[in-house]
């Protein structure tokens, strides 16, 4: 064929070849579902990282006036809530409301009492989550009636608030930070341990392989929940422990997959060719075995991250996960499930965040599989 007849222009100027990774990337780009998911994940990650600073409420602030407020696109307080909040605040002053009116974004209230009204009473208005900037407008001569005014604080709770009156949006984004971080960290832990362990076992083979894989089998037989409960009992609950526990269990799958791959790669002719060249074992492992392993590892990693997130949710659901006031999607969903009758948004929104993220991760994993392994389609 046109074998030796490669064009011979500019022999000194090497052209860049297209590696298998470039090919895979091009195939991935052609996969619309995977690309859309990739953008969605990027948006989700940015929202969770930057979001908690941008939303007007922090995830720990408790608004006593706004317990279990339903989600709304318009600002709180609503018209009917002003009176309730006003009555509540005035009651604390131990005075009676004579009359009140709203003028623009300020309320004017006339209070009266059997005794002289103390001017310091305005602080009760300030303390309410609904009002701010309270001041005394006028005072009758005997001091028994007083006109107070305060501005109405406009608050947005796009996703509503939870049982104690914390903004659900900021809590969900904060929870996303934790869930994604655990997913990524535990995923990476599992991959690093699994690849090193599995590649070593598969490549060395023989008795070493036998012993290493039997250890994996023993670890497999430990019940996961039992293992985590034990860790929690001994070390108390904390964030680092969480992902260590999850990662320490999930690397087993990775190790098995990688070992299988390494075993088959070891029999490839290019490994024999490297041996015939006299390349050292570590050279073969680093230059030949690991690069050829990475395809399946990358695929498995994208499928591992959702698994970790689900595991964390599960542990949090059981109450073994992160601690209040810190939160994760699993914690939020657990709380939401308890309030499903009275405040269904508490379950709905965290669940949408979690499910859409997992779905996107699975699409990306699927796309990567197709991109890196085009023969298997």
């Amino acid at each position: 064929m046109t074998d030796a007849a490669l064009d011979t222009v500019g022999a000194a100027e090497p052209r860049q070849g297209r590696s298998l990774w470039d090919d895979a990337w091009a195939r991935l780009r052609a996969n619309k579902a995977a690309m859309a998911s990739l953008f969605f994940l990027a948006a989700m990650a940015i929202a969770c990282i930057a979001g908690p600073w941008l939303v007007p409420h922090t995830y720990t602030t408790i608004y006593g006036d706004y317990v279990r407020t339903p989600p709304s696109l318009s600002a709180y307080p609503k018209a009917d809530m002003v009176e309730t909040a006003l009555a509540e605040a005035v009651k604390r002053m131990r005075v009676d409301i004579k009359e009140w009116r709203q003028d623009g974004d300020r309320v004017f209230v006339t209070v009266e009492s059997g005794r002289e009204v103390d001017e310091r009473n305005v602080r009760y208005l300030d303390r309410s989550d609904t009002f701010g900037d309270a001041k005394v407008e006028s005072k009758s001569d005997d001091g028994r009636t007083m006109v107070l005014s305060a501005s109405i604080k406009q608050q947005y709770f796009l996703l509503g608030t939870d049982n104690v009156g914390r903004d659900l949006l900021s809590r969900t984004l904060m929870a996303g930070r934790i869930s994604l971080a655990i997913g990524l960290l535990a995923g990476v832990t599992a991959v690093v341990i699994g690849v090193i362990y599995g590649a070593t076992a598969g490549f060395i083979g023989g008795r070493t392989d036998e012993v290493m894989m039997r250890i994996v089998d023993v670890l497999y037989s430990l019940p996961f929940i039992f293992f985590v409960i034990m860790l929690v009992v001994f070390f108390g609950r904390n964030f680092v422990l969480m992902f260590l526990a999850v990662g320490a269990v999930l690397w087993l799958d990775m190790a098995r997959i990688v070992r299988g791959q390494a075993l088959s790669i070891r029999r490839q002719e290019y490994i024999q060719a490297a041996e015939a060249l006299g390349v050292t074992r570590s050279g073969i492992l680093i230059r030949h075995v690991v690069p050829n392993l990475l395809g399946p590892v990358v695929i498995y990693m994208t499928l591992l991250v959702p698994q970790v997130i689900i595991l964390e949710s599960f542990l949090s659901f059981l109450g073994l996960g992160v601690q209040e006031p810190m939160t994760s999607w699993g914690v939020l969903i657990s709380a939401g499930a308890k309030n499903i009758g009275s405040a269904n948004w508490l379950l709905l929104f965290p669940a949408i965040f979690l499910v859409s993220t997992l779905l996107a991760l699975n699409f990306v994993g699927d796309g990567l599989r197709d991109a890196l392994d085009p023969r298997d389609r």
Partner: protein
Amino acid sequence: MAGPILSIEDLRVSFRTLDGTVEAVRGVDLHLDAGETVAIVGESGSGKSQTMMAAMQLLASNGVATGHVDYRGRNLLALDKQAMNEVRGRKISMIFQEPMTSLDPLYTIGNQLIEPIRRHQKLPHAQARAEALRLLTLVQIPDPARRMRSYPYELSGGQRQRVMIAMALANKPDILIADEPTTALDVTIQAQILALLAELQARLGMAIVFITHDLNIVRRLADRVYVMRHGEVVETATTEEMFTAPRHDYTRMLLAAEPEGHKPAPADDAPILLEGRDVTVSFEIGGGFLARKMELRAVDGVSLALRRGQTIGVVGESGSGKSTLGRALLRLLPSKGKVEFGSQDISGLDTAAMRPLRKRLQLVFQDPFGSLSPRMTVGQIISEGLRVHEPSLSHRERDRLAVEALGEVQLDPSTRNRYPHEFSGGQRQRIAIARAMILKPSVVVLDEPTSALDRSVQKQIVDLLRDLQEKHGLSYLFISHDLAVVRAMADYVVVMKSGKIVEEGETGRIFDRPAQDYTRALMAAAVDRERFGKAGS
């Protein structure tokens, strides 16, 4: 019967890929009369397989076929899946190259034969069974009743291919499409399978479309030939016309692609470089938990002496231990017996002690697809040996040597940043040779270096290897089952069977006056040009 039973008109096949659309077949016209044997010849990538795959609607999912494929008045390209299934397997059946993977390892041969018979002919089980047995007898499988209960792994390659033929014949097809059916088999088995096909055709009268790159098969089997190149038919002729008076340059080139020339023997006083005495390699089979260990002697007491500038051809069928011998001599496999390199006894050396010697003992593999790491650039692959043996070289220096080595194997050095999958089979084999040559070895073991390549590319590789040998005074151990190539390459031939040397001697003598029956059988299968069967018709 009047008129062709299959006629293909203006068939075009294209594949959508990332780099745009690739046209594999560009307007092929072809016709097939009842009971006739037509060969489609061409090199890999010529579109010969895709033409028939498209006609059978078996293209990969990204392939599109247009044109007309007329089978008894029906356009096959327009049929829906169900109607096509009715035609496939029943009227037109296929056998493929790989008998190892075409059978399902989980079912017995009997089950795999009975199932399609029952489905297509709606026969009760007992009758289908009798029919299956008749088919196995027809394809001359020894002891067919017992073979019905065997699993594919219990059969040899040739036997599996016979089973595949039996399956293809099960529903009495009009047309049998054979896509390189003998390429994966040993020469002696090849001859048997081809004789069987010819005989079956004479008896059953179906038409055969033979897709092959091997002109020897064409000469012995086909009535008419289509020569394809780059997706087009460049020549149509009767077999006799094509061999006696080829019209197209490409056909002439194919005919001339038989490797030629002889290699003169080295001087008698040339020093012995690599010598093996009584080399034995045995593998333990089984020996798992509670299983009994078996010893298999792949190489059994072989002695061999390779002189400077000499080429020893090692021939034999698959499983004869020729590749194992090559690896044992390079100390890549543990072996018993003595191996000397120069004057040094290397049979006791471990991996580390062998490392400095590896520079001078090189190996080139059969499969140019598997022997190059797919994630490294060609430059990295070629210069890897330098990293090991000349660690003091700078990056720039290594690059310069890689460019030189690529030039030596006649590849464009500017391609060194590309990856192996961007090259054709012949180019990859050149890369593998460059990887061995960059270290300036004195002995190179060539393990079937031309078997996976087209004839014309084989010829180029053979020429290249001979040039390199002359230029650098190399010694080759040339392992091959392809006797034509061995004849052109080697000055001394060793014939192996079951791990032992059955005959050895100068190339000319072995080829002209083989002393052993086994050698004679090998020669006959490889070089016979007589026509199979059909002598009377």
